[in-house]
């Protein structure tokens, strides 16, 4: 290898990118510049394969105060309340060191939220694991769950919802996506990351810089191979205790108006924070790298610029306010060190012991990062021909038992029991419900958080699966009376240099985007994680989503299980779409499906449903999901109240979409639904609630038995994790 080739490999730059750098600079890159380009032009920081597509996203609505471009999106809830939220992946680090990988994933997403001035009030996590018996899987599941709990519990932010999926495509590439929601009350300012004010100081706060995660950003932009083990020494360690101090101190200085701009040091650490702050503010920065607080005195300037040590922030501060700012941090036991100042610019200049070592225009690195139009094909769904769903075959009860015992149909209580779901004393619905609910402190209204993306739908049809990633959670919110407001996402895909991956990516994004547009629920923040590929095998495309919804009051919140005897049970079914879904996969069958979705009127349906969900007409409700209607009814019958059902519907085919509700007032419910005049919607009475037992044709089984099966499956799948 030539010297140049070695260098390109080390810094993970393509030779075309090198040519582009030469052109931009008018010379060869030198010294530290290599590291800067490597970090900021990595897929992770530059979104170079996805940007052209992300630009098309529906991202605005009258409620949106901040969309892409800042650390997190912000939505106005009215009455002086706002929320910031975002979701992010930590897949690669979690596969290497599951505890720390997952923990630092939570820490990172929390920083993105409080950087903006919002106090974190809720966490959620979306997890995809391989088959339970796959190599290391038990260790990975254990470590990831402990890590998420270890961090979230300690910082004192409740985890209120999540999802856990299993599939062989994740055997060697698990997904760990974490979402955080932050709250602004009437008096809380929004803080941005735009540096400004020539002469203002650049202040470094939080943990000292160590060797953690050097080259992390560019590592996350590569596929896994057998050498991954050798890349290990860069494990980042998270300290939730330190983060808690940082949250309190940062929110305090923001509230006291002591900062001009603030940015967390996330991927590519000091490099991305410095250059992005300067670039956004169209100013220069002079920074003395020798003044960066170090944990390890042998770090070189390059190490310092690339370190991903956790729990660090970069602030811009008016010199007159430095003293009070430092006092706040000191009170919380943290250091705030001046490491530079804002200049006229345009260049960022980095000094090492008084010597100028880098002098470069931030625009060159940030805005001129490459953007690729990676090849993809037009996606055509194979499931558009009308078909009638297949008939039930075999023993229904046996099939139900198999489902409940499997890793797909069993309880996730083992997971969420390890999360503090109620710290903050605001949780109204915890992880045992699909929608997590917290009370908004000032107005007392309810905020609902739910995650979307069902990987088995993505495997079936990435375009419909993308649409489903929005519609399914939106329905879950609506039926509980929450108006779906906005969306964050985490687009986990394989290698974008492969046409197949890009085709899936574009199709999924198209599905998501149309759904968001139809519901007027914009995507306002998110993250793309490409290269989820190990030894050339891609994961199932997995665009996980997080939706937030607003409910005007806490009263009449439906339960997700039957609670009262003698209530009438109805299904509300939208259109004719269906899929054989997860059960077919479990039986190693290629699922059949009909996915020609009727969009006309769906937005009205969601609106009407939201109103219904806040009325007193619905006692309990559930969106029929994986494994179809029988499984949904089973889930509603676990806590002692069952049902007697009469319906000719296929028990296990998954309707897209269908909702089960129970009501005390059947005539009023019927009248209400008829008044919507939606011709695509079918209302059907299917039975009544009754004590202790679920009965539907040949199925006749006690709630208690179902509950046992549901709860025991985890132990059966993971012997050592009971």
């Amino acid at each position, binding site marked *: 290898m030539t010297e140049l080739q070695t260098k390109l490999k080390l810094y993970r730059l393509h030779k075309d990118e090198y040519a582009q750098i030469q052109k931009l600079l008018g010379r060869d890159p030198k010294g530290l510049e290599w590291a800067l380009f490597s970090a900021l032009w990595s897929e992770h920081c530059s979104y170079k394969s996805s940007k052209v597509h992300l630009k098309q996203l529906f991202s605005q609505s009258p409620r949106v105060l901040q969309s892409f471009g800042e650390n997190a999106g912000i939505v106005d809830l009215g009455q002086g309340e706002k929320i910031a939220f975002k979701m992010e992946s930590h897949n690669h680090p979690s596969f290497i060191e599951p505890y720390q990988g997952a923990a630092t994933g939570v820490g990172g997403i929390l920083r993105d939220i409080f950087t903006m001035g919002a106090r974190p009030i809720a966490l959620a996590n979306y997890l995809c694991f391989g088959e339970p018996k796959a190599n290391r899987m038990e260790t990975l599941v254990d470590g990831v769950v402990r890590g998420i709990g270890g961090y979230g519990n300690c910082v004192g932010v409740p985890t209120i919802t999540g999802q856990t999926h299993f599939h062989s495509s994740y055997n060697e590439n698990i997904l760990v996506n974490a979402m955080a929601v932050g709250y602004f009350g009437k008096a809380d300012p929004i803080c941005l990351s735009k540096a400004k004010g020539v002469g203002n100081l650049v202040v470094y706060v939080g943990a000292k810089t160590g060797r953690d995660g050097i080259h992390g950003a560019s590592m996350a932009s590569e596929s896994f191979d057998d050498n991954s083990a050798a890349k290990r020494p860069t494990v980042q360690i998270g*300290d939730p205790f330190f983060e808690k101090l940082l949250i309190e101190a940062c929110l305090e200085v923001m509230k006291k108006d002591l900062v001009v701009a603030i940015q967390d040091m996330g991927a590519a650490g000091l490099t991305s924070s410095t250059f992005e702050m300067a670039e956004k503010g169209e100013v220069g920065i002079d920074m003395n790298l020798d003044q960066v607080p170090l944990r390890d005195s042998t770090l070189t300037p390059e190490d310092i610029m690339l370190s991903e040590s956790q729990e660090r922030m970069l602030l811009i501060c008016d010199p007159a306010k430095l003293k009070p700012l430092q006092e706040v941090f000191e009170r919380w036991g943290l250091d705030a060190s001046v490491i530079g100042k804002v200049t006229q610019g345009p260049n960022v200049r980095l000094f090492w012991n008084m010597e100028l070592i880098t002098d470069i225009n931030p625009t060159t690195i940030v805005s001129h990062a490459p953007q690729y139009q990676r090849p993809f094909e037009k996606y055509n769904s194979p499931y558009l021909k009308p078909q009638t769903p297949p008939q039930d075959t075999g023993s229904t009860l046996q099939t139900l038992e198999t489902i409940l015992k499997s890793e797909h149909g069993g309880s996730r209580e083992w997971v969420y*029991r390890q999360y503090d779901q109620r710290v903050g*004393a605001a949780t109204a619905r915890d992880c045992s419900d699909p929608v997590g609910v917290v009370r908004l402190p000032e107005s007392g209204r309810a905020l609902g958080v739910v995650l979307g993306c069902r990987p088995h739908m993505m495997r079936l049809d990435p375009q419909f699966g993308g649409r489903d990633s929005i519609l399914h959670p939106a329905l879950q919110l609506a039926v509980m009376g929450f108006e779906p407001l906005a969306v964050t996402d985490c687009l986990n895909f394989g290698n974008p240099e492969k046409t197949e991956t890009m085709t899936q990516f574009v199709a999924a994004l198209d599905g998501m985007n149309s759904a968001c547009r139809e519901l007027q629920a914009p995507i306002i923040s998110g993250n793309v994680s490409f290269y989820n590929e190990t030894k050339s095998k891609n994961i199932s495309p997995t665009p996980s989503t997080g939706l937030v919804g607003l409910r005007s009051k806490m009263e009449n919140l439906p339960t997700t299980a039957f609670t009262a005897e003698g209530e009438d049970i109805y299904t509300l079914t939208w259109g004719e779409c269906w899929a054989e879904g997860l059960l077919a996969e479990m039986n190693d069958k290629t699922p059949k499906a009909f996915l020609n979705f009727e969009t006309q009127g769906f937005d009205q349906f969601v609106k009407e449903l939201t109103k219904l969900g806040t009325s007193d007409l619905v006692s309990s409700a559930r969106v029929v999901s994986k494994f179809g209607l029988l499984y949904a009814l089973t889930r509603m019958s676990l806590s002692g109240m069952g049902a007697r059902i009469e319906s000719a519907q296929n028990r296990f085919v998954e309707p897209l979409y269908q909702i089960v509700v129970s009501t005390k007032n059947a005539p009023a419910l019927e009248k209400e639904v008829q008044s919507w005049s939606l011709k695509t919607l079918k209302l059907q009475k299917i039975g009544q609630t009754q004590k202790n037992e679920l009965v539907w044709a040949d199925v006749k089984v006690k709630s208690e038995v179902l509950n046992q099966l549901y709860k025991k499956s985890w132990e059966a799948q993971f012997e050592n994790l009971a």
Partner: protein
Amino acid sequence: MSDKIGVLRFPGTNCDWDIYKAVEWSGAKPTFLWHQDTFNVEDYDGFVVPGGFSYGDYLRSGALAAHAPAMNSLRTAAEKGYPIFGVCNGFQILCEAGLLPGALLRNAGLRFIDQMIEIETQNSHKRFGLKLKKNQKSRMPIAHADGRYFVTDDELKKIQDNDQVYCTYVANPNGSAGNIAGVMNAQKNVVAMMPHPERAIYEWMGSSDGQLYFRN
């Protein structure tokens, strides 16, 4: 006239506001007390040490917080008979500070547990739970990794004989000795429990049984 309640705050305390709001709900007046500052005990009618992860639970839960300057004042308050209430990490801190008998070890299952549980009152407390009746059941959440109450067998007998057991678990979730969920000192002014009554104030929280622990 409403009670003045001092609520201690350590680095890493995260139920401080939850306790603050519960105290406020009860009609008393809460004031935060900062770990680095000593305080004048006469300015208050009682004290709460809230839950959380003081000092990240490093070394042992509550161990580092037990040495804060504010704890010296709290010790004075304890000696003078002021009512003091610890919840979760507050319980751990009070044990580590020697204000309550015993210690809290890692849960028997070695994992953090968040769960709605039921406890049974054994003895009421003059300020934090005066109206609680013996054998009265309350539902509220636990959320802890180190909740296994440990005392030597002799000591266990002593605190049982001396009516120092405050509440017990109906179904022991963590391996606590004598199913103990909450305990008092010999003088019965210092009391603490692992479950979180401040997370069970309003029906929408899933239970409002925690009210009795704050309201007199």
